[in-house]
């Protein structure tokens, strides 16, 4: 189905099932420990052996020699695969660094060997017996020292640099100006399920039971790397224990399980050890950002400029931190610039809202600082500079844009009018209390997605698509979509996901999964409805599917009868025309945070959080809300604790486990409030929905930072905001 004109009324609009807050249909499996994740598939292949991964101990250089002798002789060892004996491996297009290093080492903990043994304990013990002689080389590990050498680079959503009007002149002429630098650190996805794969070969056909967000990408990618025909690789990933972008591309577990299985002539299972993950896999790259804003005395932005520096391995990508600044606020004179330095740290790549997450961390502090310079309320300053069109291309309106409504609604609910604009003035016992706000912004991305839908003789509707559910609620919203379209209760729908044998979906990433995958299911259901109507001799445009029946005029036929014993199936997908070119499609929100900062120790506690979002039709308010509060939680981590600490001599992330890399825990997160504004977006898809999962993280960290400033009067521009950065400048106690 080609979606090239705005959606009109369709069966989804009935909202009998879609839009309702159903509990997750996979909930009973997940809460009872019976949902099978990748490493747990004991049933799929007999006689599974265990692989243990060895990571490189240098940041850059070469393996001068590797001694496998003692390891090979260790009990239970079946095979050891290194780059030396793996055979020729292709290079996929999605990864920057090789998944199996050697002799050249591109980054610390790059995999250099997998030891396969009968048991996990044997594989682990044998791995410790491998002796590696490294020739270390000098690497570049310090972004701040390389900004002068950084080169222009495009970002995912477009060019790296843009310019409209005469930024330099307008900024110089502006009566009120801000020129500030900000930094964000390297961050880890740290999803709870480590990357894991079971691999089994049958002749030259490979099956990978794995944990992956993008099934079709990765089946193709593994075929390229292993140099086998694409159709010979099957991926199956029905449950994914979190991804956040860290499982978009193949990782060493999949490749090493496949190579290990080929060498050991047995199915092999590999999970990346947690302390290996932080340097072995990808991370959100650190940024240095400069923001300049010029405004009239009454607060109208006349010039806005955003520059960003990040680093990556040769051939890597720049972080897109400037992306939202092209679209979020008005201003006639604008510029953005993106610079990429070569770094020999592990590969930087996508993590939840890549670009906007880091960019909003800086921009939304800058807006707070600018409002203060103007003597304006920061919420009011944002409202004043709203735009309903793409500021770089004013002929392009937003399809929907309720930023102002989100800000106003949130301010009202949060009690923003009780905020004291003078920082450091509100005390509650030992706590200095402050409030902060920030806008939320993330684009809505459209990408094609297909599904197969079958109605059987017992009236069960089965949906199959290679879409993944990484905690997002895909199972549930896909079931809701099919139930609505076919006029059956939710319990009559079965959803099967994550198998590369199924039609290719949008997959999970970039908050595109929900809208696109359900639109693909919608398309397949339209086709199935037509097939059923045709079979019954109904006019398909008149046929109504409701309460387990097909109705047209005064005829009504139960679906069970319509399906017949053989059942009836259809397959189709959604494809998009140029509506996204004509209309800028984005999602919006407003974050409000209250913090307490201990007046003596500068310990920061988040006391209240509220988000109000407008993101098209909300397909399931319960699971969508969870997406947003989860993203708010990750935003608190980004604000207050998350930082991969770089050892700039040896070139690696020092805090490479879940004790050293701190993420929010229960005690860090208060009760969170979250509301969606009513919205349907007919430009996005027949579902009229958009993404929410990444919107929720955009701006949160800045709202926390602004609240800390309001509490203490100490402005911190380098994340994370830890107490050591506050202590020296804290107001006098007492």
């Amino acid at each position: 189905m080609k979606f090239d004109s705005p959606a009109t009324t369709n069966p989804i609009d009935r909202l009998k099932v879609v839009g309702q807050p159903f509990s997750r249909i996979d909930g009973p499996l997940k809460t009872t420990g019976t949902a099978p994740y990748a490493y747990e598939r004991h049933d799929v292949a007999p006689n599974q052996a265990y692989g243990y991964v060895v990571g490189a101990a240098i940041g850059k250089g070469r393996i001068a020699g590797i001694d496998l002798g003692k390891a090979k002789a260790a009990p239970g060892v079946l095979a050891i695969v290194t780059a030396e004996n793996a055979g020729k491996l292709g290079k996929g297009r999605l990864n920057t660094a090789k998944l199996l290093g050697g002799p050249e080492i591109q980054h610390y903990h790059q995999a250099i060997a997998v030891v396969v043994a009968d048991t996990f304990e044997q594989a682990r013990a044998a791995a410790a017996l491998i002796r590696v002689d490294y020739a270390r080389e000098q690497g570049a590990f310090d972004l701040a020292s390389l900004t002068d050498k950084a080169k222009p680079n495009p970002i995912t959503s477009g060019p790296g640099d843009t310019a409209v009007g005469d930024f330099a002149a307008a900024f110089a002429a502006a009566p009120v100006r801000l020129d500030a630098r900000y930094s964000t650190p390297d961050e880890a996805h740290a999803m709870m399920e480590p990357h894991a794969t079971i691999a089994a070969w049958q002749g030259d056909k490979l099956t990978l039971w794995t944990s992956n967000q993008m099934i079709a990408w990765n089946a193709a990618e593994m075929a390229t790397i292993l140099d086998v025909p694409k159709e010979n690789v099957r991926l199956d990933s029905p449950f994914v224990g979190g991804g956040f972008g860290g499982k978009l591309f193949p990782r060493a577990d999949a490749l090493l399980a496949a190579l290990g299985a080929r060498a050991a002539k047995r199915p092999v299972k590999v999970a990346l050890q947690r302390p290996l993950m932080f340097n072995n896999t990808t991370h959100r790259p650190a940024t240095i950002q400069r923001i300049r804003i010029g405004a009239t005395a009454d607060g109208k932005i006349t010039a806005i400029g955003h520059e960003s520096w990040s680093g990556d391995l040769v051939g890597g990508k720049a972080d897109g931190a400037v992306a939202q600044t092209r679209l979020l606020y008005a201003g006639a004179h604008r510029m953005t610039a993106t610079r990429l330095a070569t770094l020999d740290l592990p590969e930087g790549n996508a993590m939840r809202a890549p670009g906007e997450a880091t960019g909003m961390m800086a921009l939304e502090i800058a807006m707070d600082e600018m409002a203060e310079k103007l003597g304006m309320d920061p919420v009011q300053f944002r409202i004043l500079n709203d735009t309903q069109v793409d500021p770089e291309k004013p002929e392009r309106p937003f399809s929907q844009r309720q930023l102002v409504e989100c800000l106003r609604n949130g301010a009202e609910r949060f009690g923003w009018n009780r905020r004291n604009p003078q920082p450091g003035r509100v005390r509650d016992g030992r706590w200095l209390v402050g409030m902060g706000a920030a806008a939320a912004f993330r684009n809505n991305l459209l990408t094609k997605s297909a599904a197969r839908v079958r109605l059987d003789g017992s009236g069960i509707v089965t949906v199959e698509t290679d879409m993944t559910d990484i905690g997002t609620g895909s199972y549930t919203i896909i079931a809701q979509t099919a139930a609505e379209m076919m006029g059956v209760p939710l319990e009559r729908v079965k959803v099967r996901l994550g198998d590369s044998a199924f039609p290719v979906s949008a997959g999970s990433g970039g908050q595109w999964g929900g809208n696109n995958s359900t639109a693909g299911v919608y398309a397949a259901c339209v086709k199935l409805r037509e097939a059923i109507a045709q079979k019954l001799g109904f006019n398909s445009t008149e046929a109504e599917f409701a309460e387990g029946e097909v109705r047209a005029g005064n005829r009504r036929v139960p679906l069970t009868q319509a399906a017949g014993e053989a059942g009836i199936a259809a397959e189709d997908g959604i494809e998009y025309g140029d509506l996204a070119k004509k209309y800028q499609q984005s999602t919006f929100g407003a974050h409000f945070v209250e913090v307490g900062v201990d007046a003596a120790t500068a310990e920061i506690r988040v006391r209240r959080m509220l988000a109000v979002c407008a993101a098209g039709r909300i397909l399931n308010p319960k699971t969508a809300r969870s997406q947003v509060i989860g993203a708010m939680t990750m935003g608190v981590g980004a604000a207050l604790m998350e930082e991969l600490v770089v050892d700039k001599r040896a070139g690696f992330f020092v805090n490479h486990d879940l004790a050293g890399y701190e993420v929010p825990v229960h005690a860090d997160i208060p009760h969170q409030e979250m509301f969606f504004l009513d919205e349907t977006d007919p430009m996005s898809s027949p579902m009229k929905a958009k993404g929410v999962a990444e919107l929720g993280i955009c701006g949160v960290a800045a709202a926390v930072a602004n609240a800390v400033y309001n509490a203490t009067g100490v402005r911190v521009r380098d994340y994370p905001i830890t107490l050591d950065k506050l202590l020296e400048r804290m107001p006098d106690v007492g």
Partner: protein
Amino acid sequence: MQGPSDFELSRRKLLLGTAASVAFGAAPTAYAQPSAVPAQADVAEAVSMSKVSFNVNGSLREIALDTRTTLLDALREHLHLTGSKKGCDHGQCGACTVIVGGRRINSCLTLAVMHQGDSITTIEGLGTPEHMHPMQAAFVKHDGFQCGYCTPGQICSAVAVLDEIRAGIPSHVSADLNAPLQLTNAELRERMSGNICRCGAYSNIAEAISEVAGRPA
């Protein structure tokens, strides 16, 4: 301030200390843990096996194990009870939480052979998809999870936390050690903080636990 020579000295001391404590060869690099592999003897020793029997979810299980096998791996890899999750294998995330003798533990931090005769409850022992434990049902109702990987550990912890409070076992945030423990929001969040949920379902988890405990979140 520490001078460069002090640094060299302390690093050498550190290395000596490390070598002494593991009693065999020096690490191949001075900078960091050489790889993700723990330090081990250079000698390939024969596997040491042992039998262990314990009660899991009401059934007596007897298995012969490599003595290095953790309780978590015994459950997941030998008994195929994969509900308990391996998130870190280092006691840092709580995904492997099970209840042993009524108390919650990180099953990745204990060897299976240390549990001869113990009574172990895993997530599978609390309920099934058809007959969920009230805590499991509350997690579903309040959407106290997303990806689901930390969930069994969260639920086992939550069940044990309510018992700990009932038993009067204090926590870091208990205000008065002489007064009966109150099941406050702060108590719940403090006690649950060993169970990381990267999807960030904490607010919903707190509501689920509070409902089971019979108090508002």
